């Protein structure tokens, strides 16, 4: 096992306050939640989207439609590696029309921007939204495409050798964001 040093950069409390802050920003910027819909990018983006939806309901007493998007089939690195398994495909569930809606795409970490690019391609195949805004919990820099998040939980400058792990109670049993350094022996 490679030697790793890791540091918790966001704890449960911090994550909670950050998502609440983002929810308020959404309401402020869009002047309410009319024509808004949340679409989380699998897997953790979906849970984050749901939490935001819950907070929005508390703030505005309105239900914001929430869906789950699997971008596996739109990835630009599919089928490129000669060996190795393909990523697992899961169901996309967007049980509402996205035409003329303002879609809030939600992901846990924004890095190269390729996931977001794939999500945009996927969404366009579903319909013609009025606008798409991007929400991320962590922006770790090192963009390879011209992509920018509209709502950022935390800006976290990183090196390429580092990895950012987002853990959520729904999937990992606890809430935390960890910055991991992988030292190769």
């Amino acid at each position, binding site marked *: 096992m490679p030697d790793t040093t890791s540091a918790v950069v966001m704890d449960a409390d911090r994550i909670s306050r950050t998502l609440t802050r983002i929810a308020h920003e959404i309401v402020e910027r869009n002047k309410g939640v009319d024509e808004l819909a949340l679409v989380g990018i699998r897997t953790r983006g979906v849970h984050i989207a749901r939490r935001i939806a819950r907070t929005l309901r508390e703030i505005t007493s309105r239900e914001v439609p929430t869906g789950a998007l699997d971008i596996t*089939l*739109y990835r630009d690195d*599919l*089928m490129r590696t000669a*060996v190795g398994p393909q990523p*697992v495909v*899961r*169901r996309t*569930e967007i049980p509402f029309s996205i035409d003329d809606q303002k879609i809030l795409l939600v992901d846990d970490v924004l890095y190269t921007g390729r996931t977001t690019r794939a999500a945009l*391609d996927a969404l366009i195949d579903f319909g013609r939204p009025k606008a798409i805004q991007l929400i991320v919990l962590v922006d770790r820099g090192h963009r390879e495409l011209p992509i920018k998040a509209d709502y950022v939980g935390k800006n976290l400058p990183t090196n390429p050798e580092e990895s950012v792990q987002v853990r959520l109670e729904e999937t990992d049993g606890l809430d935390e964001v960890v910055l991991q350094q992988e030292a190769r022996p």
Partner: protein
Amino acid sequence: MTMVPEVDQGPAITSLRSKDLLGIADLLPEEITLVLDTADAMKEIASRPIKKVPALRGKTVVNLFFEPSTRTRTSFEIAEKRLSADTLNIAIATSSVVKGETLADTAMNLEAMRPDMIVLRHSSSGACHLLSRICRSAIINAGDGTHEHPTQALLDAFTIREHKKQLRGLKVAIVGDLTHSRVLRSNVHLLTKMGADVWVCGPPTLMPTDIKRWGVTPTNHVEDAVAGADVIMMLRIQLERMEGAYFPSLREYFRVFGMTEARLGLAKPDVLIMHPGPMNRGVEIASEVADGPFSVILEQVANGVAVRMAVLYLLAGGAEHEDPA
């Protein structure tokens, strides 16, 4: 408000071991589950306004059909196109009298054009094994002789799973021309691997040798086969079989083995009636049963596309074969 239920458990494996899909015989239960889970994700694409994803963009898939087949071929073609693959359909009229290019020759000529995948349907058992030894492309068996028809069994399993949630412990009765059915062999492999209780039924003249070794319960009495069954699969009686003196007449066959409403009544109240198609109404199955409330025959057809998309997707990511021997 719809909160989508999240199934966050990853499957036990994430890829298929083999470069080809030659038969269910070579698959592990985990691999079968992977295909079904992936098909589940693929099924949703059919309900989108744009029924296309770019996953197989730039890949060439050849549908090489030596036997006529509208249903399976179109199902594969739709699946390939939904994944954005480039498809090439080659339908070869066969006649036992016509000699000419052998399968091996056809394959080697195709190979020169480097297709990524070849979907083969052929009248000889083992044709796909031959092709996989000659070609570097991934080979998908769309039905070889009387050997296997793996995508049919997978879509059957998918259909059953949608209704019954799991295959383990179900009583499945398969009735018909067992000797000549590739659908039978694939289904027996799949259902026994997944822990179902499989009964097979047909006249002794159409019962494969040593069938008990397949892990199924054979019987010549259809009432025993369907009693308490969760699923009944009817196999097609090929009218050409009459020449082989396998049974006296179609009328006799229907009387003894045909799926009638009366026999249906012996099964569980939520039984599923399945048929790989095309059906001979009044021979293996009564029209009322085929069109009745228990029939999921049309669902099978719809699910075929999703299952074939899953298979294409999972195999397309595989590495190229090494240079064939």
